[in-house]
């Protein structure tokens, strides 16, 4: 019982020392800005190769999904219903054959809507905020949550931002390196709107096609990458 008081000392001490920090961490939003460093050192170890996939009937997997998510609201269950491309990505563990990949890219390209006004670039300052915002789409969000692009979860962008993930390549100097070329701009818009129109089974979200970001938000993020004034290109 005396232990309790000792631990409250710990909790209290923690709160005093870093109250706001602990509060930020509490939400465990992995993609919130300025995350704490991992407490666990990354140990380099040699590992076995990925084992070959275990075979199991699709109907069996579907039954498990039903019993696990079947009580979620119908619109939520619809979100995990794979479309044609996703079915192939799932079945091949993101390693489609050449023919399958071509088919995915062709059909996903048809799902890209280019801006009617022909303008690909919005406001880079807004884009910076969108790139930094990892919110939205989680069952803990409410209706008022503004979806973010979450780009920093996976990409390095402006050099001053040290809290960036490494699931995707670095995008520093993205526009400058591409000489702000019009074809590159269109290609990047396509990529962000629907990553799979460029690389089949890409791990990057399909922000436009999945209606996660609006056209304006994508334009703003595009400006963050391609405006010469953007810190990405400084």
């Amino acid at each position, binding site marked *: 019982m005396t232990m309790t008081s000792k631990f409250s000392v710990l909790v209290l001490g923690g709160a005093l020392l870093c109250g706001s920090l*602990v509060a930020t961490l509490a939400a465990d939003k992995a993609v919130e800005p300025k995350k*704490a460093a991992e407490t666990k050192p990354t140990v380099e170890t040699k590992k076995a190769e990925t084992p070959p996939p275990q075979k199991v009937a699709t109907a*069996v997997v579907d039954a*498990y999904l039903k019993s*696990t998510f079947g009580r979620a609201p119908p619109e939520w269950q619809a979100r995990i219903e794979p479309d044609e491309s996703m079915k192939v990505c799932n079945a091949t563990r993101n390693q489609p054959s050449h023919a399958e990949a071509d088919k995915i890219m062709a059909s996903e390209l048809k799902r890209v809507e280019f801006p009617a006004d022909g303008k690909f670039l919005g406001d880079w300052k807004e884009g910076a905020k969108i790139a930094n915002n990892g919110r939205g789409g989680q*069952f803990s969000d409410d209706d008022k949550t503004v979806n973010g692009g979450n780009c920093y979860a996976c990409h390095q962008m402006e050099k001053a931002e040290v809290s960036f993930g490494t*699931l995707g390549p670095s995008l520093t100097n993205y526009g400058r390196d591409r000489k702000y070329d019009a074809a590159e701009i269109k290609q990047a818009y396509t990529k962000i709107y629907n990553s799979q129109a460029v690389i089949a089974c890409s791990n990057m979200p399909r922000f436009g096609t999945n209606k996660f970001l609006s056209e304006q938000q994508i334009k703003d993020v595009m400006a963050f990458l391609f405006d010469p004034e953007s810190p990405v290109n400084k």
Partner: protein
Amino acid sequence: MRFAAIGSALVAVALCAMPLKSQAQDASEKEIERYRAMISDPMSNPGFLAVDRGEILWSEKRGTKNVSLEGCDLGLGAGKLEGAFAKLPRYFKDADKVMDLEQRLLWCMQTVQGLDTKDVVARRFSGPGKASDMEDLVAYIANKSSGMKIDVQLSHPKELEMAAVGEELFHRRGGVMDFACSTCHGSEGKRIRLQALPDLSKPGKEPQDTMASWPTYRVSQGALRTMQHRLWDCYRQQRWPVPDYGSDGITALTVYLNKMAQGGEIAVPSIKR
């Protein structure tokens, strides 16, 4: 007494100072390792309070039958706790089902104790002013396997099915971001923002260290958390629907993860960010 107090202060300092060190991660890793060793000391890990509470709950008479959980068989015989967690999830003949510890406890509450588990399930994850029987019981029971190795059970066909389905679920993409577990835990040395992501897609030290350290006391949440909570939280980050507590999908993933973690030496409750 004094040691514990000093320890606590150090823990607080260590855990709070870490984000500042992010730019000098390498330099700080040794330090972190030192604090880690220190905080696995039962005297300064609040997770052990949950262990104590769980011990009381385990022997408390409850339900319409007014009996304790001591008549509950976790796989090694009624009331036998030493090493039981190391072999969970496993197939239980009486229920004709593969169950993880939490599913099994709910089953025992219902069938052995005759307890209506609605309230227990409602309090599955503790919060301010809301204690969780499940978290406390898991802490107590899992602690009885500390020092033992993860021994995944794959002899019954239903256990094999669980492992296979778990692997499928691990790679199954969906949701508004097309994420799967493997998007974040599918290759080595990746991180999201600054958080290192364990590669859980192949057998090895990373899944071993991961699975052998749950349940854990999460300092950021001020609570002991179980694997059910971790996977609930990862499905949230995956932008998937809420998974049901104690559902078969979560157990399937746990079997698969334990298969990757086979042989990892259990040290729980641990303490994490």
